[in-house]
Structures are given as structure tokens and as C-alpha cells.
């Protein structure tokens, strides 16, 4: 929290590239001729939980994927902990969308968690007792310890999501990027995930989540990043998550009733 200077009760945002766990400058990503993300600057605040929100097709997931180098940007740069992405990859853990993999793949829950340890295991290293213990500990944190030996095809959607989170935990990273972790999961899973994310934040880690449920933003997150191809707003929830910014991000796509409801919730 060194970078957040408290000054008479007003927190000052970390603005410099070097102070941010993930800073993106002038990022443009395009599939074909139509940009999905256009000239976006983002400065993630250290030790905070940030939600990336915006309408469908606004480039939320693309922004995350470009920041991780999964899709290659047309232009722009990504700085992670003050250095180029490739030098700091070991400090990043990514939780992809659940639907991005085939759950009929022949593998057990514990094997998926061990994938998170691939850096420690190397190419030929044997899976030892301490690796298994670490994997079991991560499963325990998401309440899935008893599922270790089950085939992944037997899991419910919420359980699949928690397995993915446990795999990210196994990496022991400092920055966690999650793509729609609450999409289509049960309430118990949502509670379990948010508890784990809060514990990460309490341990000083940085969490960035692509999020779609506007109703829970104020409960779960400290910061928001609103995007609709271009950046709409960025900052603490109390400042950047307002009726005006939402209106401008969602345009006509958000019913006025929804906006009213949210602004009432915001007080």
C-alpha cells in the first residue's frame, strides 16, 4: 500500500506506470477492421480489487487477454510491476472463462491444480508430496478438497469455476486477473470466490475481475474500470461508478429503471 498516499482522508491514486501492478497505455486490439478495444489507458491500483465493467461486446475480456498477451494488440504497451509483461509473467495468475475449455478432457481435479505448478515442476520434474500438498491446500481454500480425485466432467459450473480459481492460487502470484468468474455460477460459489478474492486483497495482492453484475459492484470492489471499446471512466467505486458514467458506457442498452436502482443503491 506504499503507493496510496493518505492525505487528510483523501486517497491519491497511483498514477505512475512504475507503481502499478498492471498498466496499459494506448492499447488497441482489433479483430478484422473493427477495433474491439481502442486506445485504452488503464492503471490498476495495487492491493485493490478492480472490476472491469461494460456492456456485452465492449471489449472487457479482450482488454484482459491483450494485457496478458493472449491476443496480440495492434498497438499499445503493457507494463507489469514496472517491467515488460514477459519479465513478470510468473507474478500473474489468470482465470479464464469456464466455457473456454472442454470439460470432457481426460483429467482429474487435482491434475488441473497441478497445472498451476507447471513452472515449479518444469518439463521432467516429478510431482512430489509437497506439490500435492500445495494443490490440496488450494482446493481447500475454495472448498473443493473432497473433489480432488474426481474427473472434471463430473463438476457443476460453480465447481468448475472454483477449480480454475484454485489453479490460479497454486501459482502463488501477486496479480490475479479473472474473466467473468461469477457468470452462471450458484450463490454458494459466488460467496466462496469473493471470500477468496478478499483474502487475497488482505494479503496485499491485486485482483482484477471482468464483471457483468452491476448490482454487486459496490459490495465487492474498490475500483472500477468502465469500458465501451474506449475507456469511459476509471477510479474508486464512489467516484467512477455513477449514473452518468454508466449511462455513457451502456448508452441506451441499460434500462433507465436499472440506472435509477443503482444510483439509489449508491445513495
Amino acid at each position, binding site marked *: 500500500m506504499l503507493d496510496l498516499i493518505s492525505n487528510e482522508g483523501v486517497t491519491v491514486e497511483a498514477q505512475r506506470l512504475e507503481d502499478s501492478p498492471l498498466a496499459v497505455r494506448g492499447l488497441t486490439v482489433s479483430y478484422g477492421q473493427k477495433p474491439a478495444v481502442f486506445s485504452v489507458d488503464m492503471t490498476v491500483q495495487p492491493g485493490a480489487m478492480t472490476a472491469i465493467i461494460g456492456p456485452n461486446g465492449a471489449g472487457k475480456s479482450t482488454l484482459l*487477454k491483450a494485457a*496478458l*498477451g*493472449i491476443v496480440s494488440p495492434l498497438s499499445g504497451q503493457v507494463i507489469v510491476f514496472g517491467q515488460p509483461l*514477459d519479465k513478470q*509473467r510468473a507474478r*500473474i495468475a*489468470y482465470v*479464464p472463462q469456464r466455457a*473456454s*475449455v*472442454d470439460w470432457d*478432457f*481426460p*483429467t*482429474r481435479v487435482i*491434475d*488441473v491444480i497441478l*497445472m498451476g505448478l*507447471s*513452472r515449479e*515442476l518444469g*518439463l*521432467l520434474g516429478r510431482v512430489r508430496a509437497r506439490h500435492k500438498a500445495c494443490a490440496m491446500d488450494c482446493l481447500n481454500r475454495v*472448498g*473443493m*478438497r*473432497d*473433489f480432488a480425485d*474426481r*474427473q472434471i*466432467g*463430473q*463438476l*457443476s459450473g460453480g*465447481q468448475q469455476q472454483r477449480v480454475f480459481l484454485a*489453479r490460479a492460487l497454486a501459482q502463488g502470484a501477486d496479480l490475479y*486477473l479473472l474473466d467473468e468468474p461469477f457468470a452462471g455460477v450458484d450463490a*454458494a460459489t459466488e460467496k*466462496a470466490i469473493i471470500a477468496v478474492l478478499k483474502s487475497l486483497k488482505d494479503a496485499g495482492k491485486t485482483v482484477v475481475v471482468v464483471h457483468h453484475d452491476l448490482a454487486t459492484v459496490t459490495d465487492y470492489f474498490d475500483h472500477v474500470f468502465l469500458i465501451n471499446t474506449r475507456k469511459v471512466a476509471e477510479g474508486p467505486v464512489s467516484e467512477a461508478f455513477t449514473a452518468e458514467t454508466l449511462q455513457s458506457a451502456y448508452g441506451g442498452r441499460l434500462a433507465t429503471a436499472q440506472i435509477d436502482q443503482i444510483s439509489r443503491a449508491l445513495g
Partner: protein
Amino acid sequence: MIWDALTLQLGYNATLVAIGATLLGVSAGVTGTFLFLRKRALVSDAISHATLPGVCLAFMVLVALGGDGRNLLGLLAGSAISAWVGLLCMNWLTRRTRLAEDAAIGAILSVFFGFGIVLLTIIQTMGVGRQAGLEGFLLGSTAGMLWADAMIIAIGGAATLLLVLILRRPMTLVAFDPEYAAARGLPIHRIDLAMMGLVMAVTVVGLKIVGLILIVALLIIPAVTARFWSERSEHVVLLAGLAGGLAGYIGAAISASAPNLPTGPIIVLVSFAFFVLSLFCAPKRGVLAAVLRHLRFQRRVHIRQGLLALAQGQKIYEPLTLRLLRRAGLVRPDGVATDTGKARAGKALRDEKRWEIVRGDQAHEATAALYDGMRDIETVMTHDQIAEIDRQIGGPQGVPA
């Protein structure tokens, strides 16, 4: 005769072929599994057909240099080069154009194969007179296999297996979750290319025995066969190696046991026999097991619903339910519950209440996931846990514990 063949007592050539086919089967099975897991099994078909122009061009070059033109190493080197060119073309088409992979496979496969056939025809009219044998690369020909040929297969197969061992973790990760692998910084395209390079190596090595048209069967069938038997990718890989090796060995033996039986096609048929056996007989994923499981499940559902109806004093009209209950001695022929029936019905109702608690409690999540509507609760929980749940339900509620 077949016994002599299986025990390698049919002479020098038959023994060489059997050993070579076994090694080829193992390395094709193991390598093909990764292609199968990555859902790119058909890529192998394009790669194998793309070897033909290379074989022909290498032959022409060897003859032009004044050689015999049948140097296996030279021909295989040529086939590897043209397969690699085909692979790169296909990769480029899928990554840089809007063509889907299946279209790219079709294009590369047919164009390279067509070009190869043209070259083959030209060679036949060249009047060199020594070209006999090149057609053998289409379907394999083992008749004149030499010690050196077997060595090439052995060394190539062993090198492939070693590389698979080294690359197995990244290849599995990329096959399961390519986005996550990319986020970890794995060079996905290079790993894919390495995987396809290994497939190419197996193809080239296998040209002599099974030929380029059928090698795809040896790469894919063992993998799908193995998948029936295991839910763990490491085991699928090993089982595929085993299935491929056995098919190679038995197939070579069968073809050696009678005159004029082609080795490659017989190996493929043996491999297919393993596949059919697995398709029907595999314990979990097999067709028979699935049918039996379904019938058993249906029977249990009927009995359970019958018991619950009895416990709540409802009349049962469904004839199958009545028949099953009668056969199990739970109701009398007139539809009234027997003493055992009453006891089982009470237990069923009690278990329903217990399951309700278990399923509503996040602490029991792993147990709740096993709920199928009729499992006896004591098979998944300890007596202490059940006692605790009964305390929560409270009182006997007219239901015997």
C-alpha cells in the same frame, strides 16, 4: 503358423517387420494421442499426404546424381521436407486467412497428393526402370525390408518417444486450456508446431511399413481406443502406446503367417478390432456398460419411487414399478406392501429427508454432488454424520430411523 509368427520364428524378414511395426505402433499411438487431445486428429492426414511429392522429388534427385534412387534415408528426408512445407502452408492458411482448419486440411491434402501422383507418373515414364517400390510408399511394402530400414524405424521411433516425454506437460496444458497456457507465457504456436513435427516424424518413419494413406489410422485409432479406458491423460497416452504396439506386432505376425497379406492394412484392421472391442466392452465409457447402467438406473428409479409412494400411502398404477416391487418381494401380488417393503419404504422416506439436509448444506458439498435420488445415505456418510443429521431433522416423525 500364426503362433510361429507371434513368436518371431518365421525368418529374418518377418522378424524385422514385426519389431519395426511394434515400435512404429508405440510411437504413433503415443504421439497421436496428443493430436487427438488437441482435437486436431485430421491434421495428420494432411501431413501424411504431403509426404508424396517429397518422396518423388528425392527419387528424381537421387537418380540425377547418378544413384540408385532407392536409398531409404534419402527418400524419407525428401518426404520430411515436403511434409514440413505442407504443414507450414496449412498453419499459414489457418492463422493468416479466414479459412477454417478443416478447409485448409482439405486443400493441402489434395493439392500435395495430386502433385505427388503427377510426379509418380512422370517417374514411371522416365524409363529409369528402377522406380518399382515408390508406389510402396502409398500403402507400405515390407517385402524387401532390410536391417538398415528397421534401424531407421527404431531410431526414429525412439527419438520421437523421447521428445514426447520431454514435451508432454506443455502439450497437455495447451491441449486442455490454450488461453491459460498463453497467459503463462508458453509459446503455443511453437508447441503446436513441435507436436505436428513429431507427428510428421512418425509419419515419415512409418511410410515403409503402413504407407502414407493408412498412417493416419495408426495415429488416431489407438488414441480413441485408449480414451475408452481411462479418464487421465497420462494413462490415455500410455494405453494408446500399448494398443498401437500390440496392433503393430499382431498385425505384422498375421500378415507374415500367410502369403500375400499386406502388412499395413492388416495392422490397421487389428487396431480397429481393438477399437471395436473397447467401444463395446470398456467398463465406463463403453456402449454396453452405458446400456446396462441405464437399465439398472431405470430399475432403481422405479423401485425408489414405488417405495416413496408406499411410504406415503399412495396407490401405485405404473405396471413396471409394480412388477419390480413384486419381484423384489416388497409388495404382495395384490399391491399391498410386505413387512420388508414397509421397512424399506420408511427408510427411503427417512433418507430423502436426510439428503435434503445434506444438499442444503455447503459443508457437505462433495457428498451432495453424489446425490442421484436413490443412493443409500450410509454408503457416503459415517454413522456419526447421519446421527447429526437426524438430530437436525428431530424426532422420529413416524419414520423408522
